[in-house]
Each structure stands twice: as structure tokens, then as C-alpha cells.
């Protein structure tokens, strides 16, 4: 069954830097907003996505508002942590275990290149844990194999930052230009500083409810899929030390997209709006082909024709994407669901995509973990 889970309420704490707020306080704000929208404050279980908030981080949020007693499960799946929590919650409702589940994601990230326990110490000592360098190698491969230009990488940033101007929950709300992006500090060729998203802080929450108990016009959660990588791709998000010829190895984002399209009974041409992982500018363009939005090599044209900009046929990252919002790992995927829900309800204000009915959200990162979520109304 793909039609029996609804989004009863969403809430978000803006993404940015909040030195005076704890990660618990960020979570409280998002959770309270989502529960307010959901009307009935009762929920049967809670799943909390976070990678850096520590032991029982979800419990601390719900303790502060006196909503413990129910099962609370913290979930870590890198950039897909919030989506993993969503998958578990939706599955539990579909299985009949719960009627209403609170899903939230919270994060307060350190500044700069994220130190990860993922890499062994020798790999750090050898300089081989340089995360932006992996992004850069992936970008270079996309340039080589999909004819993406450095100018197009800059155009992704210009597009998403233009969208972000209209999002009060985004960290960067100023437009930029191709010249400014290419003039920003070179991090790892071909990636300049403005082409990389900022790890930051924030929280987002979604209340899921079985359809029988939800408003009949509530946004439907058609698919919440999480997949991991298959072995072999040296530049895949699993960041192995070696790999083999990988043209026939589907990346985890493709695996998740295929499952999600099948579960939702839709395909790429049915989509009205997409929120995708734009950790760096090339990552967004790679996502286009991995999600089936275009064939390999077509993404540059899609971007330049304005297809994926607000006003185009299939706007991608109308929220401004991670390039405008920043990326609080645990909250990121649920922030996308908040945006899609608002788009489908017609309450996205200046970012509104007229008549949006079907939306897709995508994350991919450390693990590798990839998620694809599909909602409709």
C-alpha cells in the first residue's frame, strides 16, 4: 500500500548558526511547530535523525516538552538521517504498529570541513580524508563524462541562491553571480567556496498519521526509501580506498529513486518539484541523472534552459537547496519534506510552484546512504 500515510503537520527551525541556542532548543522549536499544525498533539512513537547530537538527543527534546513515555529512537544515516527516521516511521504506520508518529531531525555542526569518525586515523594522517577533494574528483568526472562546464557549476549556485532569497528559513538569502562564485576562494579545483554548502545548525519535524485519522486533503507520503551503496565505485559516497570499472554499478541514489518511483506509482515525468542533495554544485547535476530527471550529459542543457529554475518545467531546490540553507545533517532531509509539503499545500509564498502536486526529495552522503521521498496531493 502506498496511499495510507499522510503528513499531518510540519515544522522547522531556520537553518543557520545560533550560538545562543542548544541543539535541544532547536529541536523543541521544530517539534512544537509540527505538533501545532497536526492539531491532535497525541503521537505513539518518535524517531529522531541526528549524526552529531550525541546519546539520547531525541529524548532530551521530548523531555523538555513533557512528551516522553512513548518509544523514542535516534537514527543516524549521515546526510540521510532524517529520511531514515521518516522511512522507519512510515513503515511502522503501514504495518499497523502506530497511528501517529513524530519524526524530527536536529543538528548543530562544527564549522568548516567536518571531522568524521568514519575515516581511519592513518587515512587522515596521509591527507586522504579531505572530503571536499572527493567532491572535486566527482565534479571533474562529471565534467569529463557529462560535458558539464565550470561555468555551469557556478550557474547551479546562482540558481539556488536566487531561490533562497525567498526562503526565510535559509542561511544565505542574498543573490550571487557566476563571476562572484568563480571569484570565491578555490577549495579544490574545480570547486570554489561558494559551490560548497556550509555544515550548520537547524531542526525540522514532520508528523505522520495513518490516512484514516488524517484530514482528507493532507499531503500523502507515497514513498520513503533509504538505500546504501553497492561496492565498486571509487568516487562513490562510500569513499572506499579503491574501486573497479563502475559504469554498470547503479549508485545508491538511483537504487533509492527506482524503489521510490515503484512504490509511489509515478515516474520522473510526473514530478512537479524536486529537492535534491546539493552538497556541492556538481552533486546537484549528478543527482539529475541519478534520479532519472535526464540522461547523462543532458544536465548542463537542463540547467541552462532554466528547466530546473523556479518558473521552469521542473524546479529543483526551490527552497534554495543546501547551497542556500546550509546542511544540518540530521535535519536536512526533513527540511526538504517541509518545503515539499508547503509547495503542495500552496503556501510557499514567493517560491510557490503553481499547481504542484507531486514532489520528490533526495539526499545522499556518508555511508553511503541515499534517500528518496515522494509526496503528493
Amino acid at each position: 500500500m502506498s496511499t495510507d500515510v499522510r503528513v499531518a503537520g510540519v515544522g522547522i527551525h531556520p537553518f543557520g548558526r545560533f550560538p545562543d541556542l542548544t541543539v535541544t532548543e532547536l529541536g523543541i522549536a521544530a517539534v512544537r511547530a509540527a505538533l501545532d499544525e497536526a492539531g491532535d498533539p497525541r503521537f505513539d512513537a518518535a524517531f529522531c535523525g541526528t549524526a552529531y547530537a550525541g546519546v539520547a538527543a531525541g529524548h532530551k527534546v521530548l523531555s523538555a516538552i513533557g512528551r516522553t513515555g512513548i518509544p523514542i529512537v535516534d537514527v543516524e544515516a549521515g546526510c540521510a538521517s532524517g529520511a531514515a527516521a521518516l522511512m522507519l516511521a512510515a513503515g511502522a504506520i503501514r504495518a499497523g504498529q502506530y497511528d501517529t508518529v513524530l519524526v524530527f531531525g536536529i543538528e548543530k555542526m562544527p564549522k568548516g570541513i567536518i571531522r568524521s569518525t568514519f575515516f581511519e586515523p592513518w587515512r587522515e594522517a596521509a591527507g586522504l580524508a579531505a572530503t571536499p577533494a572527493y567532491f572535486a574528483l566527482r565534479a571533474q568526472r562529471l565534467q569529463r563524462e557529462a560535458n558539464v562546464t565550470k561555468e555551469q557549476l557556478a550557474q547551479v549556485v546562482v540558481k539556488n541562491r536566487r531561490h533562497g532569497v525567498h526562503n526565510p528559513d535559509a542561511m544565505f538569502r542574498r543573490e550571487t553571480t557566476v563571476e562572484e562564485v568563480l571569484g570565491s576562494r578555490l577549495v579544490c579545483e574545480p570547486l570554489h567556496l561558494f559551490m560548497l554548502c556550509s555544515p550548520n545548525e537547524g531542526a525540522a519535524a514532520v508528523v505522520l498519521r495513518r490516512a484514516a485519522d488524517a484530514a482528507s486533503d493532507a499531503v500523502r507520503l507515497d514513498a520513503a526509501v533509504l538505500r546504501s551503496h553497492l561496492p565498486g565505485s571509487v568516487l562513490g559516497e562510500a569513499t572506499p580506498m579503491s574501486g573497479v570499472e563502475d559504469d554498470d554499478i547503479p549508485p545508491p541514489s538511483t537504487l533509492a529513486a527506482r524503489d521510490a518511483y515503484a512504490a509511489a506509482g509515478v515516474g520522473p515525468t510526473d514530478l512537479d518539484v524536486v529537492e535534491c542533495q546539493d552538497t556541492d554544485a556538481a552533486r546537484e547535476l549528478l543527482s539529475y541523472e541519478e534520479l532519472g530527471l535526464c540522461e547523462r550529459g543532458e544536465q548542463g542543457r537542463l540547467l541552462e534552459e532554466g528547466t530546473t529554475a523556479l518558473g521552469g518545467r521542473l524546479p529543483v531546490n526551490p527552497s534554495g537547496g543546501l547551497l542556500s540553507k546550509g546542511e544540518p545533517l540530521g535535519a536536512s532531509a526533513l527540511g526538504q519534506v517541509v518545503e515539499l509539503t508547503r509547495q503542495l499545500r500552496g503556501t510557499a509564498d514567493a517560491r510557490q510552484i503553481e499547481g504542484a502536486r507531486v514532489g520528490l526529495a533526495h539526499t545522499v552522503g556518508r555511508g553511503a546512504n541515499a534517500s528518496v521521498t515522494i509526496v503528493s496531493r
Partner: protein
Amino acid sequence: MSTPRRVPVRSGLFDDDAGDVVLLGARCRTCGRPQFPRSATCPYCSSVDVEPVRLAGVGTLWGWTTVHTAPPGYDGPVPFGFGVVELSAGLRVITRLEIGDGAALQFGQPMQAAIVALHTDHDGDTVVTYSFAPTP
């Protein structure tokens, strides 16, 4: 003061005992796929029937960039080259690169392994790792 010794950043990664630098990998006897670094299991088919192989330190350049800021946990010099070399055994390996001005490089150009210094440890020894440089 004794002469600084050369200490590998991790044992079992590489050696140059016979002169040329080799990477210490393995090959799965079940599915035939190569791996690096060497492990007791096959990351493709989960077989434990894995045999050690010495991978010749020659290949072609498959990807490259330059790291300008020291990443977390790294005490070596910056900037440094970083990329992927495709070994003649068909394995694509993450590696440091001795590339100087990256603009002069070409996809597919011949590369060969070298051993390079990273930093001096608390015993005064020189910590070294494998790297790849364009074949002269």
C-alpha cells in the same frame, strides 16, 4: 641524535623492498576482483578466500585535484595533490599525487608510485606514505 627512521603511515599498505614501489593488495579467489588495501574478506562477494597480491605501482591518471587547506587529522605540507590512479591491474586507487601545477595534467597519462614524507612523529621519525607522480 640518531638518524630519523622512515615509518609507514600504516603497515601493510606498500613497500619498496625490491626497489620499485608496490601497493599491497589482494585478489578474491572466488569472484576474481582485486582490492586495496588488503583485507581478509572480499568487499564484493564476502568470500574469505582472498590471496595477497603485490600491485605494481604503475598506472594511468584517472582523476586529480589539489588540496589547499590541511584536512582534519593531517600534519603534512599543503598544498598537495589528490586523486585516483588506475593501476594496470584494473584497480582505481585513491592516492596523493606529486603533481605541482595540476593544469598541465591529462586524463590517462602514465603515472608511477613513489614514497613521500608526511610529517615527523613524536619519536622524531619521518612518517611516509605512497603517492603517485607523472612518469618522467
